[in-house]
C-alpha cells in the first residue's frame, strides 16, 4: 500500500467488523428468539444471550408446527422448498444448456428468431404477468402441485445466455477435431461440451437454487393447501402483524431454518456463487 501509517490500518478493520456485526445482528437476534418461550418474547424480556429452549423449539417447529396459523410442520415445508429449488435449478440448467447448444452449434432456419424469443423473456418477470400466468396454471390443473411451482419458473433467458456465452469461448477447432475423430453432435455434446461446462453448470446451479428456494410471490399464489407450502410462505403465515399472540419463538426458528440451506450453499460454494453472480448479470 501507498500509506505506511500503522495506526491508520486499524480503522478499516474496525469499520468492517462493525459492518459485519450490524449485518449479522438481525440473524443473531432471530436465533436468540428461537431459544426462548413465547411469553418472555411477548413481554419484551428477551435478553441478548441464547435461552434454554433451543432443542424444544426447533423440535416443535420441524416436526409439529405452530398451534394456530399454520398447522403444517416446518419439515414438510422445507421438503417442499427443497423440491422446488432443486426442480428449478436442475430444470433450468437442463433446458437452457440444450437450447444454447442448438443455437450455437446448429445452423437452421429461424435460429435467430428462436434466440430472440428466448431473449425477450428477460423483460417479462413473473410480477408483470401474475394473474394471466396464474390462470394458465389453474386451467392446466397445476395448482398445489410441484409441477405448478417449478415449470413456469424454469424457462428464462439467463441460463441460455450464460451457456451460449460459455460455448462461444470453446475453440472452433475442438468441434472440428471431434468431427474428424468421428464424433457427431451427440457425442460432441456428451464427450466434450458437457465435461467442459461443469463449472458453468455448477455456478448456475448455485444461483438458481437460491432463486428457487427464496421464491415468494409465485408459491403464494398457486399453493392453497398447507401441505404444499414452502418455508418462505410458511414464515409469513406464522406472523400475524396485528396479533400479539404470534408464536415468535417458532417463527424465528423457522426463519433460521429457512436461511440455513441457501446461506450454506453460498458460503460453501463461494467461488461458484461469485462466478455465477458475475456471469448471470453480464
Amino acid at each position, binding site marked *: 500500500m*501507498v500509506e505506511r501509517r500503522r495506526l491508520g490500518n486499524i480503522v478499516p*478493520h474496525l469499520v468492517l467488523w462493525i*459492518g459485519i456485526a450490524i449485518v449479522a445482528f438481525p440473524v443473531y437476534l432471530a436465533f436468540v428468539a428461537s431459544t426462548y418461550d413465547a411469553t418472555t418474547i*411477548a413481554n419484551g424480556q428477551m435478553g441478548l444471550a441464547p435461552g434454554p429452549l433451543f432443542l424444544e423449539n426447533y423440535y416443535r417447529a420441524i416436526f409439529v408446527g405452530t398451534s394456530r396459523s399454520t398447522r403444517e410442520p416446518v419439515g414438510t415445508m422445507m421438503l417442499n422448498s427443497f423440491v422446488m429449488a432443486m426442480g428449478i435449478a436442475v430444470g433450468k440448467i437442463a433446458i437452457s444448456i440444450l437450447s444454447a*447448444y442448438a*443455437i450455437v452449434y446448429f445452423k*437452421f432456419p429461424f435460429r435467430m428468431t428462436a434466440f430472440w424469443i428466448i431473449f425477450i423473456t428477460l423483460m417479462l418477470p413473473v410480477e408483470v404477468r401474475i394473474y394471466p400466468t396464474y390462470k394458465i396454471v389453474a386451467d392446466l390443473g397445476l395448482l398445489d402441485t410441484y409441477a405448478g411451482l417449478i415449470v*413456469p419458473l424454469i424457462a428464462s433467458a439467463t441460463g441460455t445466455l450464460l451457456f451460449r456465452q460459455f460455448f462461444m469461448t470453446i475453440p472452433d477447432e475442438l468441434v472440428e477435431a471431434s468431427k474428424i475423430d468421428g464424433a457427431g453432435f451427440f457425442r460432441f455434446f456428451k464427450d466434450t461440451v458437457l465435461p467442459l461446462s461443469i463449472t458453468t453448470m455448477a455456478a448456475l446451479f448455485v444461483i438458481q437454487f437460491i432463486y428457487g428456494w427464496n421464491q*415468494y410471490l409465485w408459491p403464494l399464489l398457486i399453493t392453497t393447501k398447507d401441505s404444499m407450502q414452502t418455508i418462505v410462505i410458511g414464515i409469513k403465515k406464522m406472523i400475524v402483524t396485528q396479533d400479539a399472540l404470534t408464536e415468535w419463538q417458532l417463527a424465528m426458528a423457522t426463519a433460521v431454518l429457512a436461511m440455513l440451506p441457501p446461506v450454506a450453499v453460498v*458460503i460453501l460454494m463461494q467461488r461458484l456463487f461469485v462466478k455465477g453472480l458475475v456471469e448471470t448479470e453480464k
Partner: protein
Amino acid sequence: MQKRAVFGSRIVPYALLAPQLAITLVFFYWPASQAVWQSFHLEDAFGLSTEFVGFENYVHLFSQPEYYRAMWTTLVFSTAVTVLSLSVALYLAVMADKQLRAAATYKTLLMWPYAVAPAVAGVLWLFMFQPSLGLVARGLRLWGLDWNPLLNGTHAMTLVVLAATWKQISYNFLFFLAGLQAIPKSLIEASAIDGAGPTRRFWTIIFPLLSPTTFFLIVVNVVYVFFDTFGIIDAVTGGGPAKATETLVYKVYSDGRLGGDLGGSAAQSVILMFIVIALTAIQFRYIERKVTY
C-alpha cells in the same frame, strides 16, 4: 454469434429447443399477451362477459390519485434503497480493498445475506422493530420516539427500506470490491507520487474508474427494488398502513387479488412491462459500451 463449424440437421436443433420454447410460449408469451388483451377490456363482476373498452382502463388508472401515490412510493423506496445500499457497500468495499489478505474473509462474512429470502429478511427486521416486543423498537421508545410501523406510514417505509437495504448490501459489496480490485495498483501509486492524499485520490482516481460498476449497480438495484422486494413488503407491511408502502408491483398484486379489477391490474402490468423493457434497454446500452471498451 455462431461457430464456424456447425452441425447440419433438420430436426435436431428444433428438438433441442422445444422444451424451452414450449415453456416460454405457454408461461411467458401467452400470459403477457393476455395481460395486454385484458388491459383493453372490461370484465363484469361475475366474469361472464367482456367488452372492448380501448384505453379506458389506462385513462381510469391515470385518473386515480392512488396510482400516482404508488408511483411516488416506488420512487422514494427505490431511491432510498439504491442510495443507502450503494453508499454503505462502497464504503465497506473501499475499507476491505485496503486489506489485501483479509479482503477474502470480509467478503465471505458480508456476502451471505444475498442468500436470505426477501420475505425472511422482512420478518427478521419486523421482529426487531415490532412496536411492543422488538428490541430496537423498545430502545427507540426509551429515547422518546413513539415508534409504530403498524400505524405510522413513515415508520413503515423506513422499516421496509432498512430490510431491503440490508439484503442488497452484500450484492453491491461484491461488485464494488471486484471493481476496486480490478483497478491497477500502478494508477494508485502514480497518483500518490503526484501528491494526492487518500481522500483526494478516491474522488479523482478511484471513483471515476469505478463509474461503470456504479452505473451497472444502480440499474440492477432499481430492478431489484421494483420486483424482488415484493416479499419484504408483503411480509412486513402488506402495503400498509393506509397503502403507505404500496409500490407499483404490490399494487398490481393487491388490485388484482383483492379488488378483482382485472382490467385495471392488467393495464398496470402492461405499464410495468414498459418500465422493465426500458430498464433492460439501459442495461444493454451499458453492456454494449463495456464490450467496445
